[in-house]
């Protein structure tokens, strides 16, 4: 008994690790995706319709907003970089200038003078009204490829200085030219050969997970931020949709395990009959039906005014998921979704139980029980079933992730406002916070399901517990 707990704690830690790893991977990928958060937060105005000065001003506002929201910070705690890349590279806002800095650092230019020059360029030159509203300067920059390399900038800067000379900016241009020359002079190839690992205590993942920097209280207490498409809190929409998915999944789980298990036992007991064989083949057949097709067929047959109009074609009356009474009242809405969600598990459990029971029926202790004259029903219930049910616990763990996956399709087809439907909508509208939230929560719940199965199995069957230790 005393050695049981380390095993459970071990398993629990492992499932936490699973969720952590998954969130790291998807978070990093989501930062690299071409989807722009500011476009969804409504910060980008129709830049093309504005005049030059206002467009530059809008760009500046976006930069500031990005910095304020922490979107400019490094993505993760650790960063592998060439030693030429400065530690504080993120003080330069995301955009062409940061790309320039990165490119030159990878070519061996020292990062620190570069960063100093580019920061000055960004903060006190590019967006200053005289430069930003001067059409000539802007065309010159575009034509000469101002943002393609630092060497270009060194050539273009004096020309800009000439253009702006009478406007009192020449001092600033001279200083920029000096800094630029200095940055270009400091090239050292050997520093490029040394990689460094930077540690950033304040990074985007950290703030997503633990809050701060405009990210609320963090994902670890369930605050996944605001939805990019509706602007509402993700937690709120999850709280409305999760119970519905729970009800659906729980009903499907019951149907799959009790129905499928009983069916499998019956088939195994009558395995010599022709109808049982045909039904066994039928389980294999039904198992391969794509769920979206089955759901569509169910709708076509049972929710169609032209054929049979037994059930409503979809949706749920308000309030399901609050209490048991509502579920009873809403049963016509639940029949088809539960059928299309549970048939896969039903077939899987049925086939599994059929194999497992028919194997157990040939065990010597069943012969012994028969020889002793015990009745068939009693043999089945107290000798065969306990042994045949044991391995069922191991496949129970896999059913929960499968149910979550299936709920996306089922809920989408029957327009049930559960988690899967939320995910579907969020995917179509590129709503990354909602997708991240659903991904993390479903992974967490699946891991918990696995954990529960393992624990139950270890409690029921001491051999597992002892062998794994």
């Amino acid at each position: 008994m005393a050695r049981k707990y380390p095993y459970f704690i071990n398993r629990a830690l492992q499932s936490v690790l699973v969720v952590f790893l998954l969130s790291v991977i998807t978070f990093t990928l989501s930062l690299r995706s071409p989807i722009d958060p500011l476009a969804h937060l409504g910060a980008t105005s129709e830049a093309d319709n504005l005049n030059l000065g206002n467009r530059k001003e809008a760009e500046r506002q976006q930069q500031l907003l990005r910095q304020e929201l922490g979107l400019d910070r490094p993505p993760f705690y650790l960063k592998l970089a060439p030693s030429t890349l400065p530690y504080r590279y993120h003080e330069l806002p995301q955009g062409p200038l940061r790309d320039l800095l990165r490119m030159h650092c990878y070519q061996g230019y020292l990062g620190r003078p570069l960063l100093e020059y580019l920061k000055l360029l960004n903060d006190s030159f590019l967006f200053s009204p005289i430069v930003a509203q001067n059409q000539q300067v802007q065309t010159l920059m575009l034509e000469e490829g101002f943002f393609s390399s630092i060497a270009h900038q060194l050539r273009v800067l004096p020309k800009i200085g000439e253009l702006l000379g009478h406007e009192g900016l020449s001092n600033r241009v001279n200083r920029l030219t000096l800094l630029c020359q200095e940055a270009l002079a400091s090239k050292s190839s050997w520093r490029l050969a040394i990689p460094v690992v930077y540690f950033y205590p304040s990074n985007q993942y950290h703030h997503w997970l633990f809050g701060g920097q405009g990210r609320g209280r963090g994902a670890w207490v369930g605050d996944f931020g605001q939805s990019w498409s509706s602007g509402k809190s993700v937690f709120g929409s999850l709280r409305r949709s999760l119970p519905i998915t729970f009800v659906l999944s729980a009903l499907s789980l019951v149907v799959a395990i009790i129905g499928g298990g009983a069916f499998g036992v019956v088939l195994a007991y009558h395995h010599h009959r022709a109808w049982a064989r045909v039904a066994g083949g039928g389980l294999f057949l039904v198992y391969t039906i794509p769920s979206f097709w089955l759901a569509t067929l169910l709708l076509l047959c049972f929710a169609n005014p032209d054929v049979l109009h037994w059930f409503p074609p979809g949706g749920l009356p308000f309030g399901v998921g609050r209490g048991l009474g509502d579920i009873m009242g809403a049963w016509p809405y639940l029949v088809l979704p539960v059928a299309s969600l549970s048939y896969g598990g039903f077939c899987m459990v049925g086939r599994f139980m059929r194999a497992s029971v028919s194997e157990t029926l040939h065990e010597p202790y069943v012969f012994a029980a028969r020889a002793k004259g015990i009745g068939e029903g009693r043999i089945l219930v107290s000798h065969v079933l306990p042994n045949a049910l044991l391995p069922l616990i191991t496949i129970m763990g896999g059913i929960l992730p499968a149910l979550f996956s299936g709920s996306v399709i089922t809920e989408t087809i029957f327009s049930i406002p559960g988690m899967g439907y939320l995910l579907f909508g969020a995917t179509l509208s590129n709503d990354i916070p909602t997708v991240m939230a659903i991904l993390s929560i479903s992974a967490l719940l699946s891991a918990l399901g696995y954990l529960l199965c393992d624990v139950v199995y270890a409690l029921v069957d001491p051999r597992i517990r002892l062998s794994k230790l």
Partner: protein
Amino acid sequence: MKIPRDIRQWIVRVATGFLLVVVLMGLAAPWLANDRPYYVHDGSRAYWPIFYSDKVLITTDGRQVVCQYDAIMEAGLQAVFPPIPFSPTRPNIHSAYFKPPRAQHLGRTHWLGTDMLGRDVLAQMVHGSRTSLVVGLASMTIALFIGLFLGLVSGYFGNQGLRLPGARMVCLFLGLPFIYYYAFMLRQEALAQALEKGPWSFAWQGLASVGIAVAIGYAIWLLSGRLPTPWQGTRALPLDNLLGRFIEFIDGLPLFIVLISLSMLFTPSLFYLVLLIGFTGWISIARFTRAEVLKLRNSDFVMACQVMGMSTWRIVWKHLLPNAIGPALVAFAFGVGGAIMAESSLSYLGIGIPADVVSWGKLLAGARGHFQAWWLVWFPGMAIFGLILSVNTIGQHLKERN
């Protein structure tokens, strides 16, 4: 399954035949269903438009004729068309939701009806088989390589089989970031440029990167062998445990939700879809291979090989792999079914599949909210179901034969 032997054989034959028909249909799709003719004759000259990509024919009397069924028929040219003279992608607003079989003007028949944009269902079925097959086979081939490699390695070496000097292990572990830095990070500009130039250029640059990585790894291997070690003797690398943990990690995920989320983050393309399904689908292959190798590892012929002093690589490659590949192929067959299911589900939801790709799932999605169009439900649905069923039946047959 206690079905009589001859019936079982018959079922497998039907399944194989169905699969063969779908494969041939996919291979010949542009010649089976296309609105470009095989052959056109304008009275003095013959054209073979299906073999060329010209959009417009210029006849000898100077007319310009668009290479489409309607235009060629209206121009009154003599032409031979493929058996299904429709393009799977060209919409036609005049023929939306045609019930099958219904003829259109100029003598073309939509044998299986049309979808909401007036595209022929049969032509889309023929072309959609390509998507299913390519995604199913390509992704599972990736998965087969990953799964076989991991299963062989972890099964053969186990937790104790691969023993390294402690210094070598530490050096290799510490060297990993260096390898990544020199082989990939320093070269990422070159790789990005190569990707823009084209797949071949990218392949060469990628190979160069991998070569650098291998070279650095080998150098670390050689050098670290000569280091004086603070530890005595060798340490075992627990490969089996590592793989087991990794499999548990992937197994505990709701894979379809992960697939949906990840395919949202990439720009929709079949290439990414294949990669995603391939990188998540190797679990059962690795598991079966590992179990088989575990059984074979202590068998006489492997021990004989070891006693004869054969290299590990040769034992694994020449003796273990051919004997352990059976269960992996079973898992491969079921995996193909799963990959086709995943692809059609994703395309049914309209996630991760580019807009110009024809697929059965997308065709079926056309019936959503329009159930009068029963032909959009039955034909693609039967095709997906039949393909998955035949692949799974073949898998089941392989499993029983093993």
